[in-house]
């Protein structure tokens, strides 16, 4: 007679205990918003007792937020932020050094050099030019093949690129140009490019979306939105300039002093695991775990070779001064109208 009652009571208790047992993990991220749902679902399936609460914003804003909260961190873990930003946080002593379970599978270029590392990479995103073929034909624009091509006068007012202060994509572009062309030539290049820029936008994917809609025929962006939009039928050509592509590692790190340290570490484990790599594979051509990825059909087979040699230590060390110089030159100049 008491059996069904006891059963119900047991189920209810289990349910509520389960609900109580669910840890809420505050995850700061700069991942593209379209990716959030899939990643969250996959992780929660593998770890049913943890629930992810995303705090998503562009790279620059998330970095600034984390730095501002240095003394009282709100975040438990960062999943998907530019490594150059994470390096800055590491310099401030904000990250926990933790070696995830599958660390040995991760390529040594794609993780923090220290042992155990303060951040571990997920995938790579690289610069890409989105070129609207219909608009190009309408306006009689030749297809650019190099970064230098973009300074040609025929492209005046027709290029959009992300603001490096707010967007990680923007910053990787500036960093790459300074490294590829050298400091003096690099700034000269950007001066010339500035004449052709129609607008600086805040997010890394927006230039490609603007190019897709034909608002501006040329968008300096990265490969993920380019591929997505092309698949949706946008009249885009994906151009990989011949001087080489700037790139950035998207990485994961555990915040020191987090109240949910164990759950955070579980996330770090998941982020480096082969299961997660399968997730990233769908979106990115180059993964932190070498050997599994193959570039999407829209990208050439030798995609990985096109990346420049990137000195992340230099980039993160000089981030503030580069941004200050960039702001001084291009952000808030009166002659740009």
């Amino acid at each position, binding site marked *: 007679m008491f059996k069904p009652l006891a059963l119900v009571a047991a189920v209810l208790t289990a349910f509520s205990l389960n609900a109580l047992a669910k840890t809420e993990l505050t995850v700061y991220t700069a991942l593209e918003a379209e990716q959030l749902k899939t990643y969250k679902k996959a992780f929660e399936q593998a770890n049913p007792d943890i629930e992810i609460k995303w705090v998503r914003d562009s790279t620059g804003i998330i970095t*600034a937020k984390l730095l501002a909260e240095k003394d009282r961190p709100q975040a438990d873990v960062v999943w998907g932020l530019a490594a150059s930003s994470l390096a800055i946080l590491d310099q401030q002593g904000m990250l926990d050094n933790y070696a995830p379970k599958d660390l040995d599978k991760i390529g040594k270029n794609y993780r923090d050099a220290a042992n155990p590392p303060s951040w571990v990479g997920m995938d790579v995103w690289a610069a890409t030019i989105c070129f609207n073929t219909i608009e190009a034909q309408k306006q009689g624009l030749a297809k650019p093949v190099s970064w230098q091509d973009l300074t040609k006068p025929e492209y005046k007012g027709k290029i959009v690129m992300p603001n490096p202060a707010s967007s990680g994509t923007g910053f990787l572009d500036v960093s790459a140009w300074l490294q590829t062309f050298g400091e003096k030539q690099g700034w000269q290049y950007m001066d010339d490019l500035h004449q052709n820029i129609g607008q600086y936008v*805040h997010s890394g994917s927006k230039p490609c979306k603007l190019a897709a809609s034909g608002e*501006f025929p040329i968008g300096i962006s990265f490969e993920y939105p380019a591929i997505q939009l092309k698949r*949706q039928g946008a009249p885009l050509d994906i151009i990989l300039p011949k001087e080489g592509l700037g790139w950035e590692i998207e990485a994961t790190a555990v915040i020191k002093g987090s109240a949910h340290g164990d759950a955070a570490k579980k996330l770090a484990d998941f982020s480096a695991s082969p299961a997660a790599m399968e997730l990233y594979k769908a979106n990115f051509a180059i993964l932190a775990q070498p050997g599994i990825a193959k570039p999407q059909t829209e990208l050439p087979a030798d995609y990985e070779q096109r990346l420049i040699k990137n000195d992340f230590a230099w980039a993160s060390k000089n981030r503030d001064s580069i941004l200050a110089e960039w702001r001084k030159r291009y952000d808030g100049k009166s002659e740009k109208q």
Partner: protein
Amino acid sequence: MTLPVARQVSRAEWGDRIFVVGGKWLWLGLLVVAVLLPLLAIFWRGFSSESGQGGGLVAAGELLTSANFHWLLGNSLKVSLSVAAIVVPLAYLFAYALQRTLIPCKSVWRGLSLLPLMAPSMLPGIALVYLFGNQGLLRGLLSENIYGFWGIVLGEVIYTFPHALMILLSALSLADARLFDAASSMGASPARAFRSITWPATRQAVFAAFCLVFTLTITDFGVPVVVGGDYQVLALEAYKAVVGQQQFGRGALIGMVLLLPALFSFGVDAWLRRRHGEAMSGRAQVFLPAPSRLRDGCYLAIVLLICALLLLVFGMAVYSSLVKFWPYNLSLSLNHYQFEDTAGGGWLAYRNSLTMALCTALIGSVLIFTGAYLMEKTKGQKGLNLALRMLSFVPMAVPGLVLGLGYVFFFNLNGNPLHVFYGSMALLVVCTIAHYLTTAQMTATTALRQLDAEFEAAALSLKAPLYRHYLRVTVPICLPALLDILRYLFVSAMTTVSAAIFLYSPDTILAAVAVLNMDDAGNVGGAAAMSTLILFTSAGVSLLLAWASRGALRRSQAWRQTAPGQ
């Protein structure tokens, strides 16, 4: 003569003491926390020189003398002055057409003129991109592209139009027929009558409208974000400083600069009001315009033009939300409305906005109306009354952006016990109520002043407690005004962005913020869709409340036949 005997204070008297004195102190406390302290926090933040915050007197000096700041200030001033110079004459003509001519279908034009109030300021910007952007429908009409100065100006003109219109409508409605009769009997031409009668009476309102539009424009960043391109303005800079760079001190300094135009216009307006005195004599007769086909024809054309422009802009926004892939695939689809799959907040944002708007409207109207009643209709506590009166005028002088900044600084303070509210829905509601407090209170006070001044005295002489009188007599009579306040607060809460942008957390993201996020990420179709959703929700609720108000008025027609106190 007998000495006064210690008497039993009745329960009704205790109830009244709690209602009146307790109520006033509570209202004072709320106003101090919701209005005064955040404002003080801005000044504190701006002048404290904590490192990395960009504040302090030295930083202030640097900021104010930097070329960048001068450039920003110049831009902001140019934009705001242009917008005001365009909007005020247009609004004047429109208001004149509605009040002083005999054009047909006036309620239709009046309704259309309210459209920009129903959506956040981003909506005109988005529509302008679809109309005049590089792939815009009417791109051919423009020689340069819309991004930049003219984009911002056009967007703000649309956004601020109804605000200027409201002020001028009420000024032009005060027309004394006797003055016009006298003028015409003396042989004055219509132009002369305008110069000597209409213009002096409406001069002050024109100035007030000019200042309001100027202040609204200089502190808005919804339009510059969407259509400003690289044309930077101060409002954007404040946002970037606080959200983008977490430099609170710098944000506070810019906030203080943005406070100046509002303070200035508020002060001048108050001074002018005191000089001007009584607006209209009690014996004035209602002015009925004389028929004139030519005049009506001209004004109708103007009104039609303005309404057509508004319809074009808002119609474009709605249309663009339904277009699958602008400009290459113009088939209609609802995929932009599938917010779950897109960035920026999704349906949660919309639900949050509804919740916040409802809470703001309901809680706000109760608090504000009761507060207005206590200030207007009860005596005693002179000092308290004065403090309340002054505090309730402060929000009028503080733009939403600055108030939002104040909330960030105050509630984000280390060691502030109220910090727990930061990022919560409750704080958003409080901030929005505080932001729109003054206008709502003025509506309440106007309605309350129409009641017989002796109602309360009569109730007291009959030993009826004031709180019972308030519920039984005051509220039912003022129901139309209450519904007005409800509508105003709801719509304002749905469309507000300048304060909310600083105070939301991922759980409490609002629809207007989602619009910004989506536009920022390049999902302009989604931004248009969410804006359209806000537009229809606001318009829908407005119509609903207007209908309810009319119903309430009709049902109470039995006793509303003659003016109260007759």
